């Protein structure tokens, strides 16, 4: 995502990262990751719930997609850290247009299940062409 930031900025796309984890963990993550975007803390998860991002099932958590993510990390020389916190919370992505209308709503089914940045760019560019 950070590599595509230039293109997203050119298209007037602001990025906000959302987490349900608060306090020290959120601050430490923002610093460690060198996050350039605001890290919004949704401790009560009302935004997660509002977008239907609830708990993942046990099978989704331990299924092949999860193992594949960890295997890729190992192959890239990055040993996965032991997961802490609520590992069952789903993630996802929501793209909102300048009028406040959702244009892309994706609920992640596994750690690697994210929309391609290309599809996000195409959504924004497609909308710009129509207007």
């Amino acid at each position, binding site marked *: 995502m950070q590599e595509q930031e230039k293109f997203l900025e050119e298209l007037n796309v602001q*990025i906000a990262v959302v987490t349900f984890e608060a306090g020290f963990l959120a601050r430490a993550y923002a610093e460690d990751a060198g996050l350039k975007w605001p890290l919004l803390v949704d401790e009560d998860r009302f935004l997660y719930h509002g977008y*239907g991002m609830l708990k993942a099932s046990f099978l989704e958590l331990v299924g092949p997609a999860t193992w594949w993510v960890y295997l890729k990390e190992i192959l890239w020389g990055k040993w996965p850290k032991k997961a802490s916190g609520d590992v069952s919370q789903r993630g996802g992505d929501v793209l*909102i247009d300048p009028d406040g209308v959702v244009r892309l709503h994706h609920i992640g089914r596994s750690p690697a299940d994210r929309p391609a940045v290309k599809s996000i760019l195409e959504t924004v560019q497609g909308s710009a062409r129509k207007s």
Partner: protein
Amino acid sequence: MRPDISTGAMNIMLGAFDLTGKPAVDFVLKDSQGREHRLQDYLGRWLLMVFHRHLG
């Protein structure tokens, strides 16, 4: 402003997983530095919200 606690579950029960084309869920949230962010602050620009699973 604040969605009903059962909004997400209701969306799923009704099969409305996809809110594409619907108004964004309104929010007022603080960031990791304690600054307040509102959906209104972002109107006029595209906003991509990336929801993390867990940070640990």
